[in-house]
């Protein structure tokens, strides 16, 4: 089996600020989705969420606030799964709750050393 990185991207300016109940529902959707992948023994690393703010080093001397100053969508988190093919990995990614807020999942094979 190969390992694949899921990169979750969404427009940070467009994240709905829901009530605590809605936020809890959102968390549940992520947990249920990821629990489903884990139940197939295909979750390698649940990964992490990333804070909104960050810096981008464009060179040693040029540091900008970022990372979303230039692209509208920024990476909000990542996970690692395992699958036989990239098609299978994409099939798994279809259940990702990020789509409900107009986000995307980038699926990338992790190349072995």
């Amino acid at each position: 089996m190969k390992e694949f990185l899921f990169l979750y991207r969404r427009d940070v300016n467009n994240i709905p600020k829901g009530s605590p109940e809605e936020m809890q529902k959102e968390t549940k959707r992520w947990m249920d989705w990821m629990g489903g992948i884990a139940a197939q023994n295909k979750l390698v690393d649940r990964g992490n969420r990333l804070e909104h703010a960050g810096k981008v080093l464009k060179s040693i001397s040029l540091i900008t606030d970022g990372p979303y100053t230039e692209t509208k969508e920024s990476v909000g988190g990542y996970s690692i799964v395992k699958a036989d093919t990239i098609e299978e990995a994409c099939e798994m990614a279809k259940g990702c709750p990020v789509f409900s807020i107009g986000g995307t999942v980038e699926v990338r094979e992790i190349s072995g050393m």
Partner: protein
Amino acid sequence: MNEEKLIPHLFRTEYRKIVAVLCKSFGMEHIETAEDIASDTFLQAAETWGIKGLPENPAAWLYTVAKNKAKNHLKRDKILSKKIIPQIKYYSTLTEEAEIDLSEANIRDSQLQMMFAVCHPAIAAEAQIALALRVLCGFGIDEIASAFLTNKETINKRLFRAKEKLRSENIAVEMPSAMEISDRLDMVLRTLYLLYNEGYYTSQSEKVLRKELCYEAMRLTFLLTENEQTNLPQVNALFALMSFHASRFDARTDENGNLILYDEQDETLWDKSLIQQGEYFLQQSSQGSRLSKYHLEAGIAYWHTRKEDTKEKWENILQLYNQLLMLEYSPVIALNRTYALSKANSIDEAITEAEKLQLTESHLYHTLLGELYKDKDVHKALSHFSSALKLAKTQEDKKLIQQKTQRLIC
């Protein structure tokens, strides 16, 4: 207690204490000598008490005899003495004249240290359990064999190999260093957890024995909560988990030893004091930042102590299962999680998820799908139950699946 029952009872409670203290004094490489002395002590008790009647304090009598035997052994057997005495001097200042310390405190410390020695990573898991049952719980070889559903020879071989390891790896009866304690404790907890499950889930061996396995695992876990160094959140969580499960021990089998499923259990038979004990230790476990699998499993077991089928209950159980799977995959947990999904979300969603699991060789997988389909598609449900029946290995499992099939047809 009459005399006939007293000796086996004392054997169960005192044998392990004598062995632990002697192993600590002699060194783990002389575990067989320690066991021989302990066994001889009981043999002498059986003979002497039969003729002279019971001593006033049988346990104290045993300790005195064991002490004397240990001292005589050191004096008498010159070849062994040469091997043991330098070791003893190395570990403590004990000499031939010195006391073998059978005080309550030393018994407790020795047993705790023995747990770490027995659950040493160099020893295979199966052998650890057998060794734990023998030297930490004082079980007979035939009892261990029937607990494992195997014969005495196999157990003897397992114990022999484990003791070889104790010798060759030079495993000491001592507390691991502060650096090592967390990793070593994980091993101890894993063994205690397996020991408990052996008792709880091995449905074929007799009920009394199974219950005793569970209680022994609980006793040893409790011992860990009493020591400052080992009284860690994950230990409390494991103890809570064991308490919650134990609360249903009498409700989960009928008088013929048949398994009664959770839904059909008479909850008035659930032991309230064990549930409260579990709640207390679960509370105690909620410290620190590490969420162990025992925390999650204890949480699931806690929600199962509430019989009422609420949305809240199943939602909590589902989330705990989700987390548990992210921590560590197991097919059984994946199936249980899917069942929780059917209760918390919907049966349709659970069916879709179940079919992704690809556990088609497991009778539990087909039993689950049969359950999920039973109100949706009777034909599919029956076909899954029939696949389950073909795959089931134990009579117990077959009986349960047949019951489910019967109910669906009627």
